[in-house]
Structure formats: C-alpha cells, structure tokens
C-alpha cells in the first residue's frame, strides 16, 4: 500500500476476431499491495481483462503495464496436476521458476503450511476436497513469487462454508505477503467482503461502471453489516447495468 502503481490499464479495448467489442476503453490503476475486486455480470469481460493482465492475451487497443516479474494466476478450477501430490504440485511451480532442486521440498512444505495444508502434502488432488485443492492452487500461485496475484473466480465452485473460510485465509495470506491481488468475481458479497476497492464492470461491452473504496480494516466478515450495506448499494448499480441490456 505504498501508493505506487503496480498495474496500469489505459484505454484498453478487446475484440475477438470480428466479434463484438468485449472491453471498451477500460481505465484502471491498481496500487502496489492493493486488493481489488473486479465485479460484473456474465459476459462483462472480467475474465478477459484478467487474461490480458496475465499476458495470456493481448489487448486490441490501449496498453497494460504490469510489473516485469509478471503475475501469478489462479483459476476457478484448481487445475492441479492429477498425477502429482500436493507438495509435488507446488514443487513444479518452484521448478519452473528455477528454484534449485535442493531447496524445493522445504519451500513447498513451507508454502503448504501457509495455507494450513501441512498434513496433506503427500495427498493427490483426487483425495482432497474442493477447498483444499484451491488452497494447494493458492500455495502454487504463491510459489511463483510474483508481486501480482490474479484470481479468476477461484471460490465460485465451493460451498458457502468453505468459501467463507477461504475468504479469511486469503485475507490473511494477502496481509502476510503484501501481494497485489486482482480478484474477479460475480458474487457481490464476496467482492464487498474481500476488496479494498470494488470495480464494477458493465456488460457488453465491458466498461468501468462504478468504483467503491472500502476503508474498513481487518475482520470484515461476509455477514458484517457494512458488507451487507455495501452489497445492497453495489447490487442496485449492477442491476441497473443489467437492465440496460434488456432494451
């Protein structure tokens, strides 16, 4: 939260082939160490924007500045390698980052401990619950040691209890590691629970339709009244955006 800009998105537009405009003139500055939630209905191009930031795709117009070290990405599916144990999955990220073999195992165990999965190090993905898999994926993303962490609806497929816990976990990890996090979601409450800033994208084409800054410090919960109040406000705005598509 030093105030320095980590990610700068300027006049970004995206169109796939000759299709309709997916993103239109998106401008967004994300500060170092900031936790930003990108919120929007289906088809607003929030995942597209994330892919652009991740460098998996190029913008049609405009520019995106990201730290030279690049960004780690976490997806909705944990996408763990099914033939590797939890620890080996984390080690794979370390290996691809160029960490020498001798320190990989200990580093991987440390990262798994960060997400409270020390006991599951020897288990394979199919032996883990959905929440545990996402935590392994989080440990793997942390193993990449990039200043920016991009998360594409990482908790969307989890049950509510698990998701609440992972919110706490993610917040803790974020505070400990000081990463810049861009978190894409279609869940208003999730955005209000997690973000320091919530950015609402309109649909077809995606534009920044609204921004909310949240000053509350630690200890927000999904049931907190300020989260509820903010959710009501954002939902109203979101519905306005959706209604516009009906005409």
């Amino acid at each position, binding site marked *: 939260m030093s105030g320095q800009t980590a990610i700068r998105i300027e006049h970004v537009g995206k169109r796939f082939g000759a299709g309709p405009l997916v993103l239109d003139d998106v401008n967004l500055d994300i500060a170092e160490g900031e936790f930003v939630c990108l919120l929007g209905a289906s088809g607003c191009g929030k995942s597209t924007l994330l892919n652009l930031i*991740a460098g*998996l795709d190029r913008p049609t117009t405009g520019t995106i500045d990201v730290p030279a070290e690049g960004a*780690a*990405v976490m*997806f909705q*599916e944990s*996408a763990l*390698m*099914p*033939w590797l144990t939890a620890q080996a999955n984390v080690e*794979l*990220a370390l*290996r*691809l*980052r160029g960490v020498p073999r001798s320190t990989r195992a200990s580093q991987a165990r440390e990262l798994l401990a960060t997400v*409270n*999965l020390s*006991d*599951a190090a020897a288990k*394979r*993905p*199919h*032996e*883990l*619950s*959905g*929440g*545990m898999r996402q935590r392994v994926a989080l440990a*793997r993303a942390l193993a*990449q040691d990039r200043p920016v962490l991009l998360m594409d609806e990482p908790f969307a497929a989890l049950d*509510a*209890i*698990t998701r*609440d*816990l992972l919110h*706490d*976990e993610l917040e*803790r990890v974020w505070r400990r590691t000081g990463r810049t996090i861009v978190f894409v979601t279609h869940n208003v*409450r999730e955005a209000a629970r997690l973000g320091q800033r919530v950015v609402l994208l309109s649909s077809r084409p995606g534009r920044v339709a609204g921004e909310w800054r949240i000053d*509350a*410090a*630690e*200890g*927000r*919960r*999904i*049931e*907190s*009244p*300020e*989260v*509820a109040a903010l*959710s*009501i406000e954002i*939902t*109203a705005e979101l*519905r306005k955006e959706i209604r516009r598509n009906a005409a």
Partner: protein
Amino acid sequence: MPREQDPVGRVTTKERIETTGTTVGRVAAPEATRIETPDPGTSAPGLDALAGARHATDAGDDLRTLESGLDRLQTDAEHRPGLWRRFTTSVLPPIVFVVALLVAWQLYVVIAQPRPDLAPGPLDVAGALGDAWQSGRLQLAVATSLERGVVGFLIAVIVGTPLGLLLAEVKPLRRAVGPIISGLQVLPSVAWVPAAIIWFGLSDATVYFVVLMGAVPSIVNGLISGVDQVPPQLRRVGTVLGAGPGRLATLVVLPAALPGYVAGLKQGWAFSWRSLMAAEIIATGGTIGFGLGSMLDQSRELADLAGVLATIITILAIGILIELVVFAPLERRMLRRRGLLVERSR
C-alpha cells in the same frame, strides 16, 4: 429485492451492533472464542465486524482449527481392498472357470471317446507340452519368440513415441499423416509378410518389420488420443507457471497423456505378439530362428493336434502373463494415483 440476500438473523445482528457500539473496548475478548463455531450463521457477525483491532494470532489459530476440522469432514480415507479380497474378487474367478473348462473337456474325452487325432484330451495336450519341454524345443521356442516380441515391441515404442508426439503437436503433419496411421491400424500386419520376405528374405529383419508395422500405429494412435484428451486448463497452468514448449511437453503434456499412452502401449504389445506369431508361422526356414510360430507350423505338418493345441495354449498363456505382470499393475497404479480407478469391492 437485495434484502432477500440478507441473513435470517439480521434483526439480532443489528441489536448487537447497537449494544457493542458503546462497548468497543470489551469486544475483542469474547469475539475470539466465538469464531470457533464452524457454522458462520451462529457466530456473531456484528461483533466481528466492529472489532477492528483483532488479535491476529488468535484469529489465525482459530482459522487453522476451523480449516482442519472442515478438511477432516470433507475428505475420507481411501479404502484399499485387502489382499484376500482382491484374490477372491479378481484372481479366483478366472482360475475356477479354467479348471471347470478343463474338467468338462476331459469328461467329454472320457465319455464320448472321440478320435484322439481329431480331439485330444487335456492330458494328451499336457503330454505334448511335456514332450516339447523334454526335447528342449519348448524352451527354445518360447525364448526366441519372447525375445523377438520384447525387442520388437521396444523398437516400436522408441519409434512410435516421438512420432506420436510429433503428430499430436504439429497440426498440419497430423492432418496429412494421421488418417494413414489410423488406416494402418486396420490393415492386418500379416499382409506385410510377403512384401517383407521379398525385401529382407527369410531373416529376422522380416519378423521385426512385420512386428513394427503391427505395433507402431497402435502406439502412435494411443499417444495422439492421450494428448488430445489433456485438459486445456493444464496447458494453460503450465504456461502461466512459466513453462516453455519443451518443458510444457515433458512436465505437463506427456504425464497428462499417460493414460492414453499406456492404453496404446498395451494394444501395441498385443499387436506385436500377434504379428510375430503370424510372421513366424508363414516365414519359416532360412536364418529365421525357431519360435512358437515355427513350432506351431511344425506340429501342423506332423498332423500332431495335441502339439498344435499345446503351442496355442503356450502362446495364449504368455500373452496373458505379460498383460497380468506388466500392463495391469502399471495401469492400475497409474489410474489409482489419478483417482480414476473405482474400486469395485467398495
């Protein structure tokens, strides 16, 4: 409308805020103990929200115990069937069946008394096997054929694997060559025997050529279908993690394609073994050694049906043995590691 999303206990929550709003200082202590309940509905949301200065370590420990509890609830230990159970469910039935078959066969011979040269009994066949063993022909034939089969198969693996990877990853090449490789799988490799004899004469090269033409297309096709079924998500993750094309292939694509590849290897072995037998039956003499196929052909010339049947059983037994000893454990282990194996005894 948005109010529908509010939790049921909203009213009480509000009351709590009002009461705690005046006593912020005291909130921190009870708050920490309250989080222990795993159901978020029963914890006190208002308190948590207002307790801005929260004891980070306590909260961390709470989260840890909560998470561990949930992890325990959401996973259950894997039950592997015991040895005895596996013996009774997968080893015993085929043995019982084979024994019953042999008994029925022997009974037929004893009761119906058919011509022994047209319908030898199991004891005659066992006798023929014993004779072949005593004369050393059986050991020689098994050793020769097995060596050729294994060497031929290994060459096929060495040729087929890079070829399969190349075809799977280079799309234009795949479009050009793919259909022909698939077609070759349909062509019985025995059809190559006459051509091979003309090219290589009656030598081991003929046998190996036919084996390769049988096994390589299977291995290539197995690998291609394995690579095709690699979830695109895994490739994306590999790229995101920083793997270039080379390491993406060796660290992600190849291991992910292993199930298809092993299926291809299994079929490739079957085709090698079959092609080998066909080649040995047709191409005898010259510098070609004495294999099981040659033994089969020799017994036929002597009109020794017991010998023919004994050889057929030997060929079958070796095929089954390789499957049981090499491929079945390999496949089981691979599938179990990936959670793709459903234990039938559950």
